[in-house]
Structures are given as structure tokens and as C-alpha cells.
């Protein structure tokens, strides 16, 4: 075995590109282990756990750790690494790269944009978003870990200029048919969505799409927007904008339960169009029920939500383990199941220095492999931006769990138009032994039945 451990000072690549590079290297038959990542504490620990001797480094440095079967193989892997890193950089390197704008400010001066999509690490996101707002652009902040006081500064500035801040921690938006962030392929239609919850909005719009109802725009506002501190600053703006929007006939507001005084303030806004509220919480409708109400309001019949049954073993008493990538889906499932241990792998604490679980399945697969008995409930979210083939890594892990006697239930959030293929993903997960539901609520109810909870 030969190890290569290198710290490249000041070399930056985003976490998703690096994850792909790591995966490509690890896939080589003569490579035992490969970790190419920014040298954050988390990643350095990962490398040390793999037995690499990592020298001192900071989060601004690139960490390269490769273990191959021999020196020659290591050399080949290192050459492949350099090729992958160059290929991944914008413009392919050299002079072309020199001429790309280096800030959002600079890009907005050189090019006539309508919106900016910011997904740099959280501590830098405010600065780039500021550029967008000052240039008169609405901005979606996909990044999380942005301090709330900066969120407020930004949203006040945006309001003064008549632009919208979507985020921070905004996972999805659809603007005039263009999906930003994690976005399902939705048919155009009359429903405008304001969402303080990314995966909640994806569930709602995917089910609407499966029922044949399209979406005009989906405006994310960020998970904290309806908190007492932020006070619904973006939600109010987004509701007014959709009220003015000629393509929108009905508005759906999707959120975790808002702070009561904020809910009241949002409710006071006088809007000309009907608003259906999906405020997930104890005693509230689940997301599927809300969608069914929307369909009722539009006079569209409620279809049978697609599902693929499996021979799940009955596992009375559980335990039930919920392994989620979507926070709202996780909350909804936990509320419905009424028991079990639920983890949201999309939470800030799991995403510092690494990609979201909808892109990088590693942590969730690890957790799934550790389940020895009872039932597992997990979500798979399709659409642009998400893992191009989640079943590829998940189906074998599901099959393994089923072999251990674990009952596996999957909530598959997606549409017929999604690039991964809703039906083929469902079929592969189902063949591996999982019961698959397009409604998260239905999936959670099924899991509750399996563990025999009342």
C-alpha cells in the first residue's frame, strides 16, 4: 500500500466537485481509499479515521489523501486527480478562467441577469448576496449557516429595492419554469408557491404535478423567514408578488409552524387571490392533505398517489429509524409515525464542509448500513441538482438491510418529468425490497403500521 497525503495551500474547489473527484478516484480498482476535500476539521478527521497522516491545514486549503495498491498505481491516481481538478474548474483553466468574473458584483455588471443563485459556503454567502441585491437582482441563497442578523440586513435592503431574497438555506425555487437549486421538473400552471421549506415545497409541487396541476412560480424564502426574528420579511414580499403575477391563480404557503405573531402579520396582508396554508405541525394537515385541498379548490379530482408495495416484514415494536435528507419531510414523518428516532441529514451540523445528502449519500448510507432490526423510513428526492441516480447507491444498501430482516419504506419525491425517472427509480428501490410511496405521509403511515404503533 502507498499513501499520498498533500495539503495544497489556498487551492479552492466546491464540495460537490470534490466529492465527484473523490468518488472517481475511489472507483479505480487499484485505489483503496481517496479523500479529496477542503481541509475543514470534519474532513481532516475523516482522513485521519482512514489512517492518513494529515499535516496541519486550514479550511482554505485543499486536502488530498489517496491510498493505492502500489507506487505506480498511486502515481496514476495522482495524475488522474490533476486531470479531474482541471476539468472541473470553470472555463477549464488558464486564460479563459482568468477572464471569468470573480464576484457576483462583477458578474452583474458584465451580464444582464434577472436573479442570482448563491451556494458558496455559508460564512461567505451574505457578501455575494449583498452584491446581487445592490445590483437590483433578486437572489436565492442555497447556502446555510448564515447568521440571522445578516439575513435581516439583507432582506431589509432587498425590500427597499423591490427585489426578493430567497433564503438563506433555500433549497428550491422555480422561476418561470427554471428550477434553481434542487428543483423538480414541473409543468406550468396556476399554482404559485411560497415556501419556507424546500423539501416541503417539493412534496407539494410534485404531488400537484402527479395530479396534472402545474406551478407558475415557486418562491423559497428560507427556513427562518417566518421566525419571530425575521418576521416573515420575504414571505410578505413573495405573497404580494404572486398576488400581482398574472400567471398565478391560487397561492400555497408551505412552512413549518410559524411564530404566532408572524403568522398573524402574514395573515393580515390583504391579497386578491386565495391562499392555502400548509403549516406543518401537530394538529395541522399533512402536506398530502393540503395538496388534496388545493386540488379541491381548483376542481381537480384527487388521484390515487402512486406507490409500489413490498413484502415488508412486520416488525412489531420497532425500532423505527427515520433517515431523511429533507427537514420538513423528516418532521412530517416523525409527526405521523409518532415514534422512532429521526435524523435530518440535511441539517447544518451534517453539511458543514460537505455536500447536502441529496447530492452526497455517504453519511446516510453509513447510517442505513448500521440498522440491524426494525423498520427504516427514508426519503429520496429527485429533480435537477439532486443525485443523478440515487438508486444506484441506495438500492444495494436497501437490499442489504432487507436481508438483515429490516423493513424499508421509501418516500420518493419526484415527478414524471424529473431527469432521474420517477418510475425507474421507484422500480429499482422496490425490487431491492423497499415499499415506495410518492406521498411522504403515506410512507410514514405505512411505517407506523409495520411497527404496530397505534
Amino acid at each position, binding site marked *: 500500500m502507498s499513501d499520498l497525503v498533500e495539503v495544497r495551500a489556498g487551492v479552492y474547489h466546491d464540495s460537490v466537485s470534490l466529492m465527484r473527484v473523490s468518488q472517481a478516484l475511489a472507483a479505480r480498482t487499484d485505489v483503496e481509499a481517496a479523500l479529496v476535500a477542503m481541509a475543514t476539521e470534519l474532513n481532516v478527521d475523516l482522513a485521519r479515521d482512514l489512517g492518513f497522516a494529515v499535516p496541519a491545514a486550514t479550511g482554505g486549503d485543499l486536502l488530498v489523501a489517496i491510498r493505492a495498491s502500489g507506487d505506480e498505481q498511486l502515481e496514476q491516481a495522482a495524475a488522474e486527480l490533476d486531470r479531474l481538478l482541471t476539468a472541473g474548474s470553470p472555463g477549464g483553466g488558464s*486564460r479563459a478562467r482568468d477572464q471569468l468574473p470573480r464576484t457576483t458584483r*462583477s*458578474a452583474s455588471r458584465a451580464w444582464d441577469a*434577472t436573479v442570482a443563485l448563491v451556494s458558496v459556503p455559508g460564512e461567505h454567502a451574505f457578501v*455575494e448576496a449583498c452584491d446581487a441585491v445592490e445590483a437590483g437582482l433578486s437572489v436565492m441563497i442555497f447556502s446555510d449557516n448564515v447568521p440571522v442578523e445578516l439575513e435581516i440586513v439583507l432582506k431589509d435592503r432587498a425590500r427597499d429595492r423591490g427585489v426578493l431574497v430567497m433564503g438563506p438555506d433555500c433549497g428550491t425555487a422555480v422561476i418561470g419554469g*427554471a428550477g434553481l437549486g434542487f428543483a423538480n421538473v414541473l409543468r406550468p400552471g396556476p399554482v404559485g408557491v411560497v415556501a419556507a421549506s424546500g423539501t416541503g415545497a417539493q412534496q407539494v409541487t410534485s404531488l400537484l404535478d402527479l395530479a396534472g396541476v402545474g406551478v407558475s412560480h415557486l418562491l423559497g424564502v428560507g427556513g427562518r423567514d417566518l421566525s419571530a426574528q425575521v418576521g416573515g420579511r420575504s414571505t410578505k414580499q413573495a405573497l404580494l408578488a404572486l398576488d400581482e403575477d398574472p400567471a398565478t391563480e391560487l397561492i400555497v404557503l408551505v412552512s413549518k409552524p410559524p411564530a404566532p405573531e408572524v403568522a398573524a402579520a402574514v395573515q393580515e396582508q390583504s391579497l386578491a387571490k386565495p391562499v392555502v396554508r400548509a403549516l406543518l405541525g401537530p394538529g395541522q394537515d399533512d402536506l398530502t392533505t393540503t395538496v388534496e385541498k388545493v386540488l379541491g379548490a381548483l376542481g381537480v379530482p384527487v388521484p390515487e398517489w402512486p406507490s409500489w408495495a413490498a413484502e415488508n416484514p412486520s416488525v412489531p415494536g420497532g425500532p423505527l429509524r427515520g433517515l431523511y435528507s429533507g427537514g420538513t419531510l423528516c418532521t412530517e414523518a416523525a409527526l405521523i409515525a409518532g415514534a422512532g428516532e429521526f435524523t435530518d441529514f440535511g441539517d447544518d451540523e451534517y453539511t458543514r464542509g460537505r455536500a447536502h445528502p441529496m447530492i452526497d449519500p455517504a453519511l446516510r448510507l453509513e447510517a442505513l448500513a448500521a440498522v440491524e432490526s426494525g423498520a427504516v423510513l427514508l426519503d429520496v428526492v429527485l429533480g435537477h441538482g439532486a443525485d443523478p441516480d440515487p438508486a444506484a447507491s441506495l438500492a444495494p444498501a436497501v437490499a442489504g438491510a432487507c436481508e438483515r430482516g429490516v423493513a424499508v419504506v421509501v418516500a420518493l419525491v419526484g415527478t414524471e418529468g424529473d431527469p432521474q425517472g420517477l418510475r425507474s427509480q421507484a422500480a429499482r428501490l422496490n425490487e431491492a425490497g423497499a415499499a415506495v410511496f410518492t406521498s411522504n405521509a403515506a410512507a410514514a403511515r405505512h411505517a407506523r403500521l409495520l411497527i404496530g404503533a397505534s
Partner: protein
Amino acid sequence: MTLSMLLGEPRVITVGASVLGEALDQQAVPRAPVDWRPPLPGTPAALARVLADPRRERANALAVGRLLSARPRLVDVRPARDVLGLEPGTFFHAGPPVTWERASGPMRGALIGAMLFEGLADSPEEAERRLAAGDGITLDSCHHHRTVGPMAGVVSPSMWMLEVADAEHGGTAYCSLNEGLGKVLRYGAYGSEVVERLRWMGEVLGPVLQAALRRTGPLDLRSLIAQALQMGDELHNRNRAATSLLVRELAPAIVEAAPERAAEVLRFVNGNDHFFLNAGMAAAKVSADAARNVPGSSLVVAMARNGTEFGIQVSGLGDRWFTGPAGVPDGLYLGAYGPGDANPDIGDSTITETVGLGGFAMAAAPAIVRFVGGDVPDAIAATTSMYEITLAEHPAYQIPGLGFRGTPVGIDVTLVARTGLLPVVNTGIAGRVAGTGQVGAGLVTPPAEVFTAALQALTQA
């Protein structure tokens, strides 16, 4: 409210994870990617704080607006003792304040020469002794007195100064007369030919220029600089076109004002391609000074070197200097000189870069790119990269080769910290040993820490 974003076809700027940009490409959504990289180490929290400052955006617009709208005019030529109230034994110098102990070779050489010129010492040794003792000697930064000086930038009472007034905002700035190249005071030479030339400049050149200028009336330097840029000058290391234009403006009046001295004066000015540099520097200084003291502004209003340190001043931070060690320029050397002979970076001439000329306007001056060790694409890349760290493009100073795009003007401390791109500076190189003179010319990079220190100070301002 109407959101313009919802009206037309979405066009997206993407900054961050490439997978999200690629997702837009798959949907055929037009987009412009940003080549984002982390900011300079230790700056993220300060950047967020300064960008969150509610004053910043308007303050920067005001400050850079004042810089851009300045209308510098050459109004007079007068002795330093009259215009600056300089007393014998008091000397101004380039860059942030420096003491004799910390002064580099060329700075010491120039001070020695100025002592000899003012008759305060009879020999270089005596001058050095008195300067070292500090006896009756006061040193201060030119920038503290609305003045700039190239290289060592030493100004003494008997030197004649170009006086430039800003017709827009009413400021005034001064710079000495340019002595030419080679063995000259500003490069630290102090031999007898240096002192004799200074005498002639005080007795003949200064008074003749004064008389000529009083005949022509004020000379519009904004328009002259705009023309020179279109004639291949970048106004720091190339001033050939600007000098020619200046001679053309002044020659008839020089002949009329002093027929018997006109030939030697015109021959001197014409023999020095850098004669205009000092007028350009005063024009730059008066423009940058117009942008000073705007609370909340992160605009750089001075970059200057004293041969030991590189310093900057920032509009929202008053007269405070942020300094770091001056680098050694990378360039071409004259004759047998080499990098080992070079002194660290020196001079106030970086006031040209401060207002978007010099290294920032390299793309306008293809004729000198090889002189500073590069090729034409390098020059274009240098100018192009400076748009990343500047607040504006100059409405009057344009670069023909870039489609008459305005020069990049107004360095923003936050943009330097964000991009890690440091101002590109063209410069002459002085010999490190006092008395040597010029040894070359090239490019130099300011120390990054002056910008990060100023950024930290802005969080407290």
C-alpha cells in the same frame, strides 16, 4: 409589488457549487458563472461586517463619484517654501512617515542631496551626520501636505512645485518638477551633477514655467490625460505622449515669456519622456483627495511607498496609514544591474494606480509592456483583472484597445480582500545603495496585509 424576476426569461448568475450551475445548463437556462474563491485568510467575518454597514454603498458611490468628477488643472509653478511653508531643515518624503534610522538607501541618498542643495551641509558625510543626529531636521510624509513625490519624493524649501487645482471640488495638490532619468535625486543620487541640475531647475526651469503658465492660464490636465491614454501612455511608466502634449501647449508661451531661456528649457523638457509624470501625479493626488473622509467608505485614497514600507489610506479611515513591508519589483534592469541591486519599492507615484492609471491602464500602453517584462495579452489581463477590485469605470479616461472602456478606478478594500487580487503597480526601480540612481523598471505587488488591516479597521470605524 412587482418582481421583475417573474416577468421575463430567467437569466441566472451562479456563484458556488458547480452542480447547481450544471443543473441550469441542463435546463438550457442562460447563466453567467462566477469564478468564486475564498477570500484572503482571516477576512470573512470582517467582510460581512463591512458589507452590512448601512453607510457603505452610498459612501462609496459618493467617494468614487468625487474622484471621477475631479477636474484637475495645472494653475501655477511656485517654490515649495512659498506654497507649502517649508522651513529650512524640513523635508517631505514619499510614502508613509519614515525615520532616518528606518530609511532605505535611496531615501537617505535623496535626503543627503537635498541637504547639499539647500546648503545645510557642505559634504555628503556632514549631511548624513546631521540627518542621523536629527539636529534641526524634520521629516514628514508628502501626503500629509497635499503633496506627492516620485521615488524618494524628497521636497525641500527651494524646489519648485507644480500646483494643480481641482476646478470641481476646489482642492489643491503639489508635486515637484521632474529631473529626468538616470542619476537624479529622486532615485537617491546626490552627486554634484544632481545638485547642479536642481539649482538650474530652481533658477531657470521653475520661473520660466511659471511665467509661461501665467500667460496660457490654467491647463486642463483631465483632457490632456484622456488624450495621452489614447496615444499609448498609461501615465506612470510611459508619459511620452502626455509630455509631448504638454510641450505643445506650453512652447509658444515659453518662447514669449523667456526668449533667451526658451531653448534650454524646451530642450530639457523635451529630453525627458517623464516630464509629465509629476503633473499627472499632482492631478491624481487632487482627485484622490477629493474622495477623502467619507464615513463608511472602503475606497483607497492613497497608495504610497517610502522604500521601506508600502502604505495605504482609506476614505472612511481618515489619515491613518496601513503599512506593510515594501516588495522588490520584478522587472528589467539597466546595463549590468540586477535584482540584487534593487531597493524595495519606493515612491508616491502609485497615486496614479490609486486613480486607475499606471498599472491599471496597462492595456492602453502596449508599447511599454516589454519594458515591464510582459506581453500585450498580459497587459490586457492586468487591466481586465483590475475591474474586479474597483468601484467604477472612468467616464473620461478610456482605453481604445478595450473598445474605449473607461479605466478601472477606485480600489475597494473589500474587493481586494474578497478576490485576493492585489493592485497592479508599474514602477521604476531604485538602486539600494544611496547615490546609485535608477537601476530598472518593472511591476510590483503591494503587501496583502495592508488591505486586510484596513478592512479590520473599517469594522470599527
